[in-house]
């Protein structure tokens, strides 16, 4: 084919020598698609705006003489600049949409876009929480329907929908436990928490006024049942147990633990952060659990959004159901849905411990989670946990020849595989391996958690990764692990190819700069 090249070379020059990356500098400091983006305070200005609004009617203002006269100091951008600002920044983020995100205990699965579309239906997105109930029957029905799913999937008779996130759900569960104990005139002081627990557990128990005591783990990474039984007594309000636990293992004695706690007059809180391993396969209600929060943003695929919003409904046993917080959606005999608030609580839920949030919870997350559940169905959800566990075990067995798997010998893991940094040389540790994985194009696994394993690495692939994607990931992980064991010096300064090198966290904490301030020379020039 004869192409008009107009002087444009159509062929690579031969015998080109490629210089090393370090030898090349650019005028801007940018590198092609890797572009630094200034702060809006450096590029925007207070009199620029990307919105145009109609003129205000000419009437006297009634602000009580409190008009804001001093400059506010928030700059604006035009729409084109604004879109570019955030688009450029977005490209400095790793995300599930970019690649496999094996962050243990965080369940970074694919977020289906149908969920987003459904959450934006005006009948869900554009309704006010205080509209008359007759005008929001569909919204109340949706909350009720989601509640039914959660109750059936967990085998528990009641659920509180309003908690805003996992830790908020924990608090909800612990407050219900305290309310139930106080209601029977048996206030107790201590909550037992396994030493491998997520940090939110002890923080939550303390917030609710409890003293926190550790339960030791046995050599298999499970709760030491005998040690737990020995500690139970009339001062113990209950236990907070994560199951599957933070080592990625199922607690086989869960039912025995529950029975022992109940026999001693206590109650059982189960942290449901790892529900993805058992959803559709095991019902916590069958294991004697009294309360468990469910992270809709983990198991049920609502997006993490760079740190929330989450949603943490809490399922309850019969013992705790009467103490559930307000509001509660109920289906009336006439088929209508009613929101039980403070007003009607007296007759329906007189033992409720009260309200945890303004309004009714994370509706936007409810629509997404229900969409996800309907898509999967009971059969699909069972497949979810089976594939999640299969993927994790495949990783465990593909890497346990090169990395130490502290509990690998005791049998299969659940939805996440745990490794340690044993055998790394030249002072290299888990952090260095993690940063090496960044250069390979991956978000690292969870590091240094759980605390019970030295240099812990917790890998959770989730069920939405294909075998090919996992094989590729395993290849990269193996390569970086080999480098760590061989003491590769270059890992100490990794990542080399990310938008930033390692950041100085000590400086950030010593002299916290939490807001932008005009540089001094800039301020002087303005004088």
């Amino acid at each position: 084919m004869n192409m008009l090249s107009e002087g444009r070379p159509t062929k690579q020059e031969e015998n080109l020598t490629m210089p090393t990356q370090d030898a090349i500098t650019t005028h801007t400091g940018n590198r092609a698609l890797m572009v630094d983006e200034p702060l809006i305070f450096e590029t925007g200005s207070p009199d620029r705006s990307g919105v145009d609004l109609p003129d205000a009617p000419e009437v006297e203002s009634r602000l009580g003489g409190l008009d804001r006269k001093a400059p506010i100091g928030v700059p604006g951008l035009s729409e084109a600049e604004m879109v570019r600002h955030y688009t450029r920044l977005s490209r400095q983020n790793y995300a599930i949409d970019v690649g496999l995100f094996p962050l243990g205990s965080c369940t970074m699965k694919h977020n289906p876009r149908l969920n987003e579309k459904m959450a934006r239906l005006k009948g869900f997105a554009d309704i006010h929480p205080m509209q008359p109930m007759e005008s929001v029957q569909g919204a109340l029905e949706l909350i009720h329907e989601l509640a039914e799913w959660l109750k059936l999937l967990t085998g528990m008779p009641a659920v509180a929908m309003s908690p805003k996130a996992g830790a908020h759900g924990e608090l909800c569960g612990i407050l219900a436990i305290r309310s139930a104990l106080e209601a029977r005139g048996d206030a107790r002081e201590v909550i037992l928490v396994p030493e491998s627990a997520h940090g939110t557990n002890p923080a939550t128990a303390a917030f609710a006024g409890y003293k926190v005591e550790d339960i030791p783990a046995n050599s298999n990474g499970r709760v030491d049942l005998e040690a737990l039984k020995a500690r139970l007594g009339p001062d113990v309000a209950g236990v907070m147990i994560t199951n599957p636990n933070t080592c990625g293992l199922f607690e086989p004695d869960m039912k025995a633990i529950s029975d022992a706690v109940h026999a001693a007059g206590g109650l059982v809180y189960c942290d449901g952060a790892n529900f993805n391993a058992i959803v559709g396969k095991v019902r916590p209600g069958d294991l004697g659990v009294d309360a468990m929060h469910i992270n809709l943003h983990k198991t049920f695929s609502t997006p993490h959004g760079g740190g929330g919003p989450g949603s943490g409904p809490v399922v309850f046993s019969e013992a705790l159901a009467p103490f559930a917080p307000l509001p509660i959606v109920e289906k009336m005999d006439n088929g209508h849905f009613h929101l039980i608030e403070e007003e009607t609580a007296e007759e329906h839920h007189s033992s409720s411990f009260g309200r945890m949030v303004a309004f009714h919870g994370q509706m936007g997350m409810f629509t997404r989670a229900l969409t996800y559940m309907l898509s999967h169905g009971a059969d699909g959800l069972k497949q979810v946990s089976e594939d999640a566990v299969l993927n994790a075990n495949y990783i465990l067995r593909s890497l346990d020849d090169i990395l130490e798997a502290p509990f690998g010998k005791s049998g299969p893991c659940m939805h996440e595989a745990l490794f340690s940094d044993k055998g790394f040389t030249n002072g290299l540790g888990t952090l260095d391996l993690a940063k090496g994985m960044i250069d390979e194009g991956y978000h690292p696994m969870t590091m240094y958690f759980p605390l019970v394993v030295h240099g812990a690495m917790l890998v959770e692939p989730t069920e939405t990764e294909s075998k090919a994607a996992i094989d590729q990931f395993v290849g990269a992980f193996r390569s970086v692990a080999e480098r760590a064991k061989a003491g590769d010096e270059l890992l100490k300064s990794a990542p080399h190819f990310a938008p930033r090198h390692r950041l100085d966290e000590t400086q950030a904490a010593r002299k916290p700069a939490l807001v932008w301030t005009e540089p001094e020379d800039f301020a002087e020039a303005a004088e």
Partner: protein
Amino acid sequence: MKEDKMRYLPLTPEDRQSMLATIGAQTVDDLFVDVPEEARLTGPVQGLPMHAGEMAVEAHMKALAKKNHAAGDMPFFLGAGAYRHHVPASVDHIIQRGEFLTAYTPYQPEIAQGTLQTLFEFQTQVARLFGVDVANASMYDGSTACWEAITMARRITKRSKALLSSGLHPHYVSVAKTMAKFTKDTLVYDAPQLDAATDGQRLLDQIDSDTSCIVVQYPDILGRIDNMAALAEKAKAHKALLIAVVTEPVALGAIMSPGEMGADIVVGEGQSLGVGLQFGGPYVGLFGCKEKYVRQMPGRLCGETVDAEGKRGFVLTLSTREQHIRREKATSNICTNSGLCALAFTAHMTLLGEKGLRQLATLNHKKAVQAAGRLSAISGVKLLNDSFFNEFTLVLDKDARPIVRALADQRILAGVSLGRLYPEEESLAHGLIVAVTETVSDEDVEALAVALEGALA
């Protein structure tokens, strides 16, 4: 189920077999050996439907959505802590970018500068809007931010008596009361009265040397605006803190910030900018304070630093306050906050800029003034407020709650009745809170006026 039909699960039956072989297991059930057999379900959970395609799920969800009166489809005047503002198209586009939407909390800062820089910008915008030195990276919502502020004041002052203004949103009061039952904090609170004046004077009289904080909403639940400088001064004299609560941040484009009047901690609900109504959540809690209290502030914080090459970058910082380090000694148990809603807030604020924010605030206020004039001219309707921003309280000569319900049946969403918010307070039953934002047209106001005239006739 035909396993290969579930569209979000990429493993094929062949993949599963080959992976099981690598693991050395016969069936996937072998991987669940730790689960006692009696606790393992053999088939799908009973009572739930099987998997469904996109079209079927969409049909189900749309049928539910259709049963609701969407605010945009009719004259709409509800506020009381959640406001309907126009969200520019570009804001929703930005928050749907997968790199923001599907990112995690920025624990690996080298590959999370996008989230971190926007949080740093968010913190700066919130601090400036509130007139305080610093702000955090967001809380769950306004009500939980308010309670966290009360506990922060307790930690700082080592006192546990909080005075709550009667103008504080009743749900915020309810949340604080629930929590205080467990923490043994003392809360002093009375429901509001239908009076043009706030209870500022009562609060002034109540401040004493046991007081940890005074919590004042600005503008308050009835829409009233009051200068809190005298409260700040008396609080300071008694070593107590003044906490201001802002449920409508757009107001701060028109009225003085709480920080300028001396508030020590300012918290709020950021839903007005970028987030939308969403039936009450997710929203975004705003939290700012004076610099000297920063180490007692709850929640995530983003700070500036440099990388190994000396380039500016951002990280999560002061995590020694947080639960994953401090465990039972943490300032709060909060882990996930409201990152994506914070992004929506900051993107909307960036699009507005100071000029746009001030224009938006003026437009809201003047439309509200105009509407208040029209509505209070109706026989049987009185305007309670002397001052207000975009929300005011009408006192009807009948119970407001049945009227609100009747008007909803006529497809007019008239406002929030005080009977809904304060079911126990019969003296408030005639009150109706009406919010007028830039989304309300003159025709909407006229429709409400005519319907109210009909209902009161």
